[in-house]
């Protein structure tokens, strides 16, 4: 079975028979590509069956996280969503569907534009708050124009995004984090609470659960 998480920017593909895992840009997916089942913003174009992103995230959390109570946060290039479980029961979820969006994408664009290597940049205490990635980029450019080093300005925006995401997820003591930003070491180090990394294929574990329970019958 071929599973697909087709986000706004990146596609994560998992072949459950061979366990092959591929990450590529959604724009590089062949037009004829059809996964058996999947999730994500662009899924309707590329899969026979689709699963609601939050349902996939909740399924994945229940399967992958052994603790009874946890917060699982997924930060994509366009949006962020989280689920909270207590004593293995679903308690809460939220999804910043559009507003506050494009943070992940903005961080990637900014790094490329300013030529910042996030793996070599130290987390900052000061932070830039911004409603969305585009406004945040404006603040970074203003800071650089005012004399702040580009990597420091970018790191301050990242710190701001981390604080914003922490508040969005209701300030838990510990966050399980998934999504493209798990590969950004500066982002992970800038999180204001204990942060446990799950890989970018996490949502697909939830999709697999859905497929096993609903499509194989």
């Amino acid at each position, binding site marked *: 079975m071929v599973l697909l998480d087709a986000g706004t920017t990146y596609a994560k593909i998992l072949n459950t028979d061979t366990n092959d895992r591929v990450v590529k840009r959604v724009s590089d997916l062949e037009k004829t590509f059809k996964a058996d089942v999947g999730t994500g913003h662009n899924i309707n174009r590329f899969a026979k069956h689709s699963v*609601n992103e*939050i*349902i996939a995230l909740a399924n994945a959390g229940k399967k992958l996280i052994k603790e009874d109570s946890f917060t699982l946060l997924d930060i994509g290039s366009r949006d962020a969503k989280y689920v909270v479980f207590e004593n293995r029961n679903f308690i809460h979820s939220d999804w910043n569907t559009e507003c506050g969006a494009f943070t992940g994408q903005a961080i990637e664009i900014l790094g490329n534009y300013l030529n910042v290597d996030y793996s070599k940049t130290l987390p900052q205490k000061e932070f830039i708050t911004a409603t969305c990635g585009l406004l945040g980029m404006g603040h970074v450019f203003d800071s650089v124009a005012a004399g702040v080093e580009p990597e420091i300005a970018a790191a301050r925006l990242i710190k701001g995004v981390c604080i914003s995401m922490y508040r969005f997820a209701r300030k838990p003591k510990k966050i399980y984090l998934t999504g493209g930003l798990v590969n950004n070491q500066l982002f992970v180090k800038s999180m204001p609470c204990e942060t446990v990394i799950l890989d970018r294929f996490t949502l697909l574990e939830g999709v697999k659960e859905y497929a096993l329970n609903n499509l194989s019958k």
Partner: protein
Amino acid sequence: MEDKDDKNYNPMQDMVLTRHGFIKGKEQSFLQNPKDKPFVGIIGIPPKEVMDELIQKSAIILSLDMYKVDQLITEPTDNILPKAYCAQIKRIIANILSVTDYWTEDVMDSVLVGRNPISEIIIEDSEICRCNEMGFVADFIENELKIKLRRVKNKDIERKGDFICKSGIPLDEKFGKIAGYFYRDMEKKKPFRPEYIKPKCAFWGTPPWGDFSIANYFPIETHVYGWTRCVENLTPGDLKLELEFDPDVPTVFFSQSFCPKAGLASYLANKHPRGIFIDMDIGLTRSTVAKLTAFLQLNNVI
């Protein structure tokens, strides 16, 4: 062709709410000839004494909140209101402009020369009412459309009950029945008191003016709270009642985007043990539907 099984079905589309109840299609033609009767538009829920006065005058009363000509409700307001503004206020202004269509005149020309047939608009402008944003654009009605404007305050405090809010009627119909209840009371008709149903979840907020089809995702066992419940009680300024919610059922705290009530909805959603805040501008987006249905599914509501 839309039907009731279609999730996008919008029962309010093409419907006009008047004191005669909801009317549809050609039946609207009676509005074309108000003759010598006053033709009065109302915004919000005016107090009982004002409505009694209109009944005595045999006025034709049009609810500008509910009356809707088409789905392109923003187009006529593009040069009047900012783009980032409450969809419902845009609808009200568009409704006022479009009433002129019944006289087959060009809308803007007719309006500008003061030939809009509405003789008076009564706006409920209480300190705590459905909305203060309407108050800010009321000058436009008076000065540009040349329609007499009367601002009234609704201080009615006698709660008439919330039978519809807590009944097993589908949520989209609840909104319509609650709006209709206002007119039933006005005309001294027997109150509509459907049977109570045990709730699986709740909807808190104003009616979803931007797209009523959101109601189709809720089960019939949905109780209604917030301002909509205040309307059924005929106490739209009853903030104490508006703040109430049921902590024992998962609750969607809804507001229109750009509505001042969004602050209240967001606050209460955080306070509720199983609450979620959802806002919506014009038309449901895929993301909003996904967020809503995931919330209802994960809480075993649907």
